[in-house]
């Protein structure tokens, strides 16, 4: 990865690999996540797709993308720990595989969407009004996917009052209050004061990419920019237990635990291996016991969020099987604490993790995701070094992770008849 400072607070990253037939170019605005910013950010990225100085309507923008042989233009607002990322990205086929060159036009469309959104220096009030409705519909409809909904409720309960507890999609009552002028002001503020990373990944011409990026940020001011790392909580004063009732046929169990391990600690690598053995895949303890031995579920898995020092567990079960499933999940955690796993289990888990790291180099998106995570954490490691760190993890470290795990929140979405 090559880093070029274009301006104070605006950096260009080039991750080039000629084996790809495509490339991804992204503009990422970063700043601390706030509740207000979440609603504004979500509305902003929807509005950016509705027109800009180059393509004045949504349809013109979509026609332009069709003419670029179906290039993708992605606008998203999301969080990484406590950092808010607003990302505008384009993915397109390299010129040598197409009947005509499109590289320059693709970048023009990307940078115009990112930096020159809106028409005639404002957002159209009717457009914003409609996108507010669309966003509120999306916020309300988070209930539709019950597994997702359970994990969202878990976050809400577990991280109440913490920066990372903000729902990055935003809040209905906040969205209601946003005006077209207010949103445009927010957009200008993002452009003029947020940190900006411009990231190219895949097969592209480095000097052409740099030239286009330089031209795009030329009118922008310098800025103070720093990445936001989540504060990591390791203490749990009281275990929170919440049950919601809904008209569903399957119960959804979502459990949150804290390890308190910071991403900068060596133990973070052990945490990854720990989660793989405990509930990572088909060789894990949760899969083999909750699913295979007890036939309680179709899925039971754990996932470590390194940025927060948190371990999540999720499973879909019969309502009446809450106790056996919960007890088994806890019993398997106890087994991990007792060091009740073999060197072979560790070896399998490490191989799985390393395989997934090595596989990333085949996808422009996965590469970008890996390297932008390193940028956020302020470290400069390659995929190869990440693999070395995983290889070095010892059984003692894994047991230590298990013993640092503290149960924080138990959430259960269950049926109505129990109400």
């Amino acid at each position, binding site marked *: 990865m090559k880093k070029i400072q274009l301006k104070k607070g605006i950096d260009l990253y080039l991750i080039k690999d000629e084996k790809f037939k495509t490339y991804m170019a992204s503009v990422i605005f970063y700043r601390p996540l706030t509740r207000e910013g979440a609603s504004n950010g979500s509305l902003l990225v929807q509005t950016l797709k509705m027109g800009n100085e180059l393509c004045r309507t949504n349809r013109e923008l979509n026609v332009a993308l069709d003419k670029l042989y*179906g290039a993708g233009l992605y606008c998203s607002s999301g969080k990484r720990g406590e950092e808010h990322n607003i990302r505008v990205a384009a993915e397109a086929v390299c010129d040598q595989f197409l009947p005509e060159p499109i590289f320059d036009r693709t970048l023009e469309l990307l940078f115009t969407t990112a930096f020159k959104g809106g028409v005639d220096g404002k957002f159209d009030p009717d457009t914003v009004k409609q996108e507010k409705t669309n966003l509120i519909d999306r916020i309300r409809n988070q209930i539709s996917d019950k597994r997702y909904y359970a994990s969202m409720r878990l976050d809400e309960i577990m991280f109440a009052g913490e920066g990372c507890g903000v729902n990055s999609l935003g809040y209905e009552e906040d969205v209601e209050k946003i005006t077209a002028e207010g949103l445009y002001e927010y957009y200008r503020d993002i452009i003029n004061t947020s940190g900006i990373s411009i990231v190219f990944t895949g097969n592209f011409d480095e000097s052409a990419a740099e030239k286009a990026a330089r031209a795009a940020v030329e009118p922008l001011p310098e800025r103070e920019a720093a990445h936001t790392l989540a504060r990591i909580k390791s203490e749990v004063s009281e275990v929170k237990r919440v049950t919601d009732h809904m*008209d569903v046929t399957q119960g959804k169990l979502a459990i949150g635990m804290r390890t308190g391990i910071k991403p900068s600690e060596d133990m973070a690598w052990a945490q990854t291996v720990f989660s793989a053995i405990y509930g990572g895949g088909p060789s894990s303890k949760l899969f083999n016991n909750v699913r295979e031995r007890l*036939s309680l579920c179709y899925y039971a898995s754990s996932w470590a969020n390194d940025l927060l020092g948190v371990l999540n567990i999720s499973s879909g079960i019969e309502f009446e099987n809450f106790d056996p499933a919960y007890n088994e999940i806890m019993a398997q955690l106890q087994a991990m604490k007792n060091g009740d796993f073999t060197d072979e289990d560790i070896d399998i888990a490490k191989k799985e993790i390393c395989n997934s790291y090595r596989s990333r180099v085949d996808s422009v998106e996965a590469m970008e995701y890996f390297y932008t995570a390193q940028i956020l954490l302020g470290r400069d490691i390659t995929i190869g070094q990440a693999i070395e760190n995983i290889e070095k993890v010892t059984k003692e470290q894994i047991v230590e992770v298990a013993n640092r795990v503290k149960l924080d929140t138990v959430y259960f979405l269950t049926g109505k008849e129990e109400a």
Partner: protein
Amino acid sequence: MNFTRKYDELLKDCIYEGEHKSGLKVIILQKNTAKKYATFSTCYGSINTEFVVPRETEVTKVIDGVAHFLEHKVFEQPDGSNAFSLFKGANVNAFTSFGVTNYLFSCTDYFYENFRQLLSYVQTPYFTKENVEKEKGIIAQEVRMYDDDPDQVCFYNCLRGLYKNHPVRTEIAGSVEEVMKTTPELLYKCYNTFYHPSNMAVICVGDIDPEKIGDIVDELITKDKPEGEIQQVFPAEPDEIVSPESEAYFEIAMPSFSLGFKDIETGGDLLKRDIVTSALLRVLVGGSSPLYERLYSEGLINRNFGGYYEYEKSFGFAEIGGESKDPKAVAKAVHEEIARVKRDGIDPEAWRQAMNVLYGRYIRLMGGDVENIGNEYMFSYHRGVDLSTYPQVWKTVTIEDGMERLNALLSPERSSLSIVYPKN
């Protein structure tokens, strides 16, 4: 076994193809990737509930969901272990679709070792009363998970509105009731019929040596060509649909809908029909279409709106779907737009753009994730389609083909609208 080598000028990749003495088809797509992907698949999916076993004369009819149940149980090994544990540093999985069951893994290291495991475990069925009973609880939870998914329910309600008899109308995993009726004998019967190598394919994608693959296949596939062929049987399906509308209610905030069109042309040149239909649907309801712009600005659709075509040899349907406050108004507008384009003709500029998008998508697919490439190849192969001919077939497609498809497929009399509304 021997391979023929084909160089793809456009993609600058090599494709190796061969047929093993058992009748097993082997295809290797060489790609310069870190990840390697292998699939071992059978031309047997949820729709194959009726068939004639080779050398028998009577039609065998089985309950729904057996192909999917088998997909779970093939992992069970005679020593009681799970096939997952045989692999090293790999992503191992399997899935069942309407037309195929696919066993797969991907990895960066230990590929050939893992490939041996793939061929071995899929050929080692071990079904007992106990291990079949145990699986019922797991599959029942999988079925219930889908039962809570409004999009799944909406989709299948639409298919049940279109199809009277064809098993595509039934959920791939079947119902909990039928899952509970599954027996080891039934699993063996279907396994022995459909898991013969002659009904299967090995497809590998990545930086892979065809000779090594050939040697492993020669060593581990010991069966010969079967005597007699499997006959897939499908119940007679009328051209007419079952019902034009259906409704269901869920705890959701926004109604969602599927507007399906039953294709009465089946078989024939499937790849060409796929390209023509995909371009047609883009022109009609894609993001750059006039209809999309109008419905979006009227607040009747959101960005989930779109259409696609799905098919196997024995069926085909187009689905246009999304979320809307008023799905009936959207369906009405779609029908009106179809009538308008039937009358005025397809806009040539829009057609050209849609075709270019499909071309770009093909390149992106073939230059992308090895798993996606392998899966598309695998689906295509079992439909009798050679995906590497896509650019050639693409070139032959004309706007007249589009008009013909428009008139043949998108008829309001053969459409069904399925809506899922919020409760209360």
